[in-house]
């Protein structure tokens, strides 16, 4: 320890080893000698910040901060000096933060968002609806025996069927899957009246009615009249609505329609 260190320690009223370490750190950071630093702390000229850099690698921000905590204990004068280092080290970090903020505030174009949604909508409408619909119609047009003919009574019966929403439980859609084909003849794509098409159904809760007119007892009009008017008279265990509220004409049309099933879907 030199006399200069002891003198500075006395002036600053701090332990000698602390003053020594602080002076060394300051000297390394500023690129000057330890004696110059001690001289300036002892009342000489301040250390120039622009002094030529030391040959050693640059001191990291963390190291400087550590020194600050040491010098806090030493004295206010030392604190002021170290603050200069922090100020010198901070700008790099500050610039990074500003760049991040600019990214966050990037303007999102409403026009491109709206166009994107409309494009997806248009794409869906074209490729999931218009194209397959036209394709199916073209294929059916090119095939033989491509339409289902139905009398006006059958159509009226189909309308009663649709009003009663029978298609919410019964399908007329036997698929080309092996287990399903045991239920009757597979539904073929054909031109038909809109009401007949509408009655094909989506959910099979009750039996499929594709070929109900080709089987017993559903090929019998008397049985159908009895069953539809009072289903409990046939089977109490299976829940089926009784349509005794239908007027005679509507019931007759409905039965005519049910007796046509098996021809139309063949």
């Amino acid at each position, binding site marked *: 320890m030199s006399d200069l260190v002891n003198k500075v320690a006395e002036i600053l009223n701090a332990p000698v080893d602390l003053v020594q370490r602080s002076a060394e750190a300051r000297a390394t950071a500023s690129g000057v000698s330890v004696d110059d630093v001690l001289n300036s702390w002892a009342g000489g000229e301040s250390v120039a910040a622009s002094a030529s850099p030391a040959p050693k690698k640059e001191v990291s921000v963390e190291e400087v901060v550590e020194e600050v905590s040491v010098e806090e204990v030493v004295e206010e004068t030392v604190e002021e000096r170290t603050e200069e280092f922090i100020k010198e080290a901070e700008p790099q970090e500050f610039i990074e933060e500003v760049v991040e903020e600019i990214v966050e505030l990037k*303007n*999102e174009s*409403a026009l491109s*968002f*709206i166009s*994107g*949604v409309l494009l997806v909508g248009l794409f*869906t*409408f074209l490729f*999931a*609806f218009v194209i*397959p*619909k036209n394709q*199916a*119609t073209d294929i059916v047009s090119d095939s033989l025996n491509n339409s289902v003919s139905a009398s006006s009574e059958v159509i009226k019966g189909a*309308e009663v069927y649709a*009003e*009663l*929403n029978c298609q*919410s439980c019964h399908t007329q859609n036997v*698929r*080309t*899957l092996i*287990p*399903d084909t*045991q*239920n009757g003849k597979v*539904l*073929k*794509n*054909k031109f*038909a009246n*809109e*009401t007949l*098409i*509408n009655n*094909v159904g*989506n*959910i*099979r*809760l*009750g*039996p*499929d009615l594709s*070929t109900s007119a080709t*089987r*017993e*007892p*559903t090929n019998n009009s008397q049985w159908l009249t009895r069953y539809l008017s009072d*289903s409990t008279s046939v*089977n*109490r*265990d*299976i829940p*089926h*609505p*009784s*349509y*005794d*509220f239908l007027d005679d004409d509507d019931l007759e049309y409905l039965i005519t329609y049910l007796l046509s099933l098996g021809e139309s879907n063949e």
Partner: protein
Amino acid sequence: MKIKLFPKNEQELSKLFVLIFPLTLLLSLTISFLKNAYFTFANLLPNNSVFNYGFLDRLDTQAALGLVFGASLCLSFSYLFSKSLGRSMVLFPIVFLTLLGVVGTEFLDILVNFFFQNSAYDLGNSSLLILLKILVVFGLFGLSTLNLLVKKEASIFASAQFIYGAVVFYLISLFIVRAELNVFSDIFLVNSLYTGTHIYVGVAFIYMAIVHFLMTRPLKAVLFNKTLSSITFWGFLFLLPWTNFKYYYGSVLPNWIENISIYLSMSLVVPLLAFLVNYIKTIQSKEVEEVRSLNLLNFSVVLFSITTIFHMISSFENLLPILGITNFVNVITYGLVGSLVLATISLSYYLIPKLYGREVAYSRLEDITFFGFKISYLLLLINNTLLGVNSGYSWNAGANTGSPTIYGEGFGIVWSLIGINFSVNTFISLVLLGSGFLYLISVLRAVSSGSITTVEEMVYSNE
């Protein structure tokens, strides 16, 4: 409680829909209960032109997917849309009339069917009513586009994006439903795409809009990642409309569209994961520990995730012959509608203090209501999955089961397997009805006699 007949701003309009939503939900749950009761006890209950399963089923679809969906859309649009864009709505009086029109036309649809059931078919999709619906929804589409174009926020918050997506696909679904049916495959195309656009995109997107709001603002949490939210939005928007075709596997639909539907359904895993990661990470950053109004939110996310996982699992080719055209298809709809209902209930409880200046006292009434809704929707999902699998399996298990025979033994076998599930469905819908009634009581109690608190002020301007 003070509600203005002609609201002057979004806040007053939202107040109106906070009250309308429980009423529409109660109506829908009542019809749903009657429908299930008339299926299970068709032989015991007196049937007439209104009280029979077929008619009630149609009415139930209109109430749940039309009216309740419409009310949720209007509530989220009136409260969240302007908030997400950082300004008060332009042409507010027209927005008000249009939103009333959305709920009004859906309600009118139910009324017309109820009073003119014999002409229901004539009053169907080609009627004036559907044209009126298209006009109203087109108006909503135009107004939402206009409001998006003049937004004040730099970015569009996720809620506004989801609401806009729902409106656009709701409009598309109305165009699809009016399509002419020429050949048999047309009905499958129309039904699939209508389900894909209206139910899958429409319902799921309103749900997403509400969740993206509730997981951030009330919890003072920051959205974890905007990119993940964009993946959720564009992923679901692109995939969901295609996912219903697969349930007609083996039918007269073109094979390519069935196959595309299968692959795209499996791809739902991408937006689902993006949503879940975003949700969990966002919730983790919350600053408010407990918000009672959000009691149902986490559960709704679980319900939505289970539904989407079911959607993906049902895409396997060996399962499709069993699950297609059975009650399993309804599971997806029940799951999505259930998630939407739970999220909207959460939103309404959050909004009551903000809009009416009345605290909700979270007493036993609310606890029972929340529990009732949670358990019912979960059981509904499980029960209908079993129902679908059992009926699909038994229809395919042997010859004649799918066709009526002399002694009706075919359906007898099926009914012995699924009869219990239908009875459970009736019980669940009764619990749901009870929960819906308690929810209405709870909302009315809160807005009329809750302790007074500060009302939220919306201070947006168009300048």
